[in-house]
């Protein structure tokens, strides 16, 4: 094998990587107030300072963290169970999987649409309660959406992310079950023990990757929090969006600064996650690199 081969192989991704870095850097520069198109030519930290000193910033940060952490942890746990269910019932292909894929295909705005259809005080669940005599008016049904505990948003994310975690981890878990899992059971271990000590730990690489993806995504996305969230406090990405649609175009640096802060928190989350999970890793295992 050629010494040069790897360098040829990585050419495309290097090219795209450069484009990516270029774009991100350019975007971050805008957050420092440098947007010549709007006659903003002074590089400054003032936009960051203004946002950080705004009392609503911490509230927004809390909202975003709450949504992403709770929904991702629950989605990961339920996702693991779903993956196990698919593996143990032998449904790793075919119709059942198509239904799971459906959930992954659907855009978040549609999730908001039917969440409102089902969960609002006027929604199908409320109407079922009304029909069965449990409540008398729409207001009798508890408010699940638009609340400060962001329940509706969390449920919406879980709906989409559990299938995603399952789909992502299925191949790995299925493979391990077929080889090592079978071997373990043949040697006499119970199904539960095999799962907890062999299959689950060895599937963790895929599950971990999926967890990080849904954690960062739910922190930075704005569709669900915008449509299903409370008017105040707003999640961070919603706040960024509001600044983006502000008619005064000179507000653009605010958008980019909030996005810059989202980026910083996202990286912090990823960093913390790696430090915390360092113990469980097998050194040298290629799966464990990222």
């Amino acid at each position, binding site marked *: 094998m050629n010494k040069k081969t*790897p360098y040829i*192989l*990585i050419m495309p*991704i*290097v090219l*795209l*990587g450069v*484009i*990516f870095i*270029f*774009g*991100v850097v*350019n*975007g*971050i*520069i*805008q*957050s420092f107030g440098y947007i010549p198109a709007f006659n903003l030519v002074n590089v400054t930290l003032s936009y960051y300072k203004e946002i950080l000193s705004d009392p609503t910033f911490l509230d927004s940060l809390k909202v975003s963290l709450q949504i992403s952490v709770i929904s991702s942890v629950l989605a990961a746990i339920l996702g693991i*169970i*779903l993956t196990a*269910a698919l593996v*143990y*019932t032998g*449904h790793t292909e075919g119709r059942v999987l*198509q*239904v*799971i*894929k*459906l959930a992954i*295909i*659907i*855009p978040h*705005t*549609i*999730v908001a*649409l*039917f969440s409102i*259809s*089902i969960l609002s005080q006027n929604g199908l669940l409320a*109407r*079922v309660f*009304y*029909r069965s005599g449990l409540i008398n008016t729409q207001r009798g049904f508890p408010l699940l959406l638009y609340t400060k505990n962001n329940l509706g948003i969390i449920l919406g994310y879980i*709906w989409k992310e559990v*299938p995603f975690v399952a789909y992502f981890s299925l*191949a790995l878990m299925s*493979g391990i079950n*077929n*080889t090592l899992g079978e071997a373990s*059971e043949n040697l006499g271990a*119970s*199904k539960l023990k095999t799962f907890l000590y062999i299959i689950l730990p060895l599937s963790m*690489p895929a599950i971990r*990757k999926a967890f990080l993806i849904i954690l960062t995504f739910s922190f*930075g996305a704005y569709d669900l929090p915008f449509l299903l969230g409370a008017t105040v406090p707003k999640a961070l990405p919603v706040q960024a969006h509001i600044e*983006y649609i502000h008619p005064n175009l000179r507000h653009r640096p605010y958008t980019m600064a909030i*996005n810059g802060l*989202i980026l910083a928190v996202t990286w912090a989350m990823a960093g913390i996650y790696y430090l915390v999970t360092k113990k469980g890793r097998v050194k040298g295992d*290629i799966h464990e*690199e990222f």
Partner: protein
Amino acid sequence: MKNFKSNKLLNIFLYISLFIISVPMVILLLWTFTGRWPWPNLLPKTYSLRAIKEIFAPHARIFQTLFSSMLLSLSVAILSVIIGIMTARALTLYDFAGKKLIAFLSIAPNLVPGTVFAMGIHIVFIHMLLSDTVLGVIIVHLVYTLPYSVSIMRDLTQSIGERLEMQAYVLGASPFKSFIYITLPLLVPGIKTSIGMAYIISSGQYFITLLIGGGKVKTFNMLMVPFIAKGDRALGSAYALIFMVSTLLILIITDRVTKKLPYQNDGRKYKWNWN
């Protein structure tokens, strides 16, 4: 030694999950044909074909947009797989300078808010004459699909390893031939998943397609989003269903095409079916 109880519980969990996923689909279907659906009706009060008529009206050009969208996302998916295989191979089987950096770059796009990258690259692309072009859109979509493609292909490449390929090489096959005939067929499951995932991500992009495509590159998603945002539930549901069905179609076709290939890898290292 089957433990029936645990299987039953898992089965129940599975069917509950399927139920939770399917119910919204049914609701979308109902909404597509709804005229009015006020409180406290459990089913629509009046049915109507308004949404169907509006969506299939000739001026909406839905089939052209759908077709060109599908072609775009399919191109992204195929390119993504090819680059994914190449990168995965490099990262798994070789050692080279900057390896860690490349590995990190492969997951970085997930860690950056979409608007930052989009607004930043927009100006760069204008300079490069890539704005408002299909190629520009394909490139930015690739930035978001590659993390998944690379990751999936890495797992698979690593589990297959080099040994079979080496054996073929030792027996006299050229490196290229041993890759094509030995390794590639074993990569098929990963290729399948990779194409699916990349297609889904590409067809789901909105803001970046809007900004880089500049309205000239029209995807189905761009057609769909304003109606959902406006809150027209009938029309939004109709668009959503067409979107889902078309995507599912692509995934099924990908499945069938890859099934026809003679070599299968179902997780057991050295098994393949001879025809």
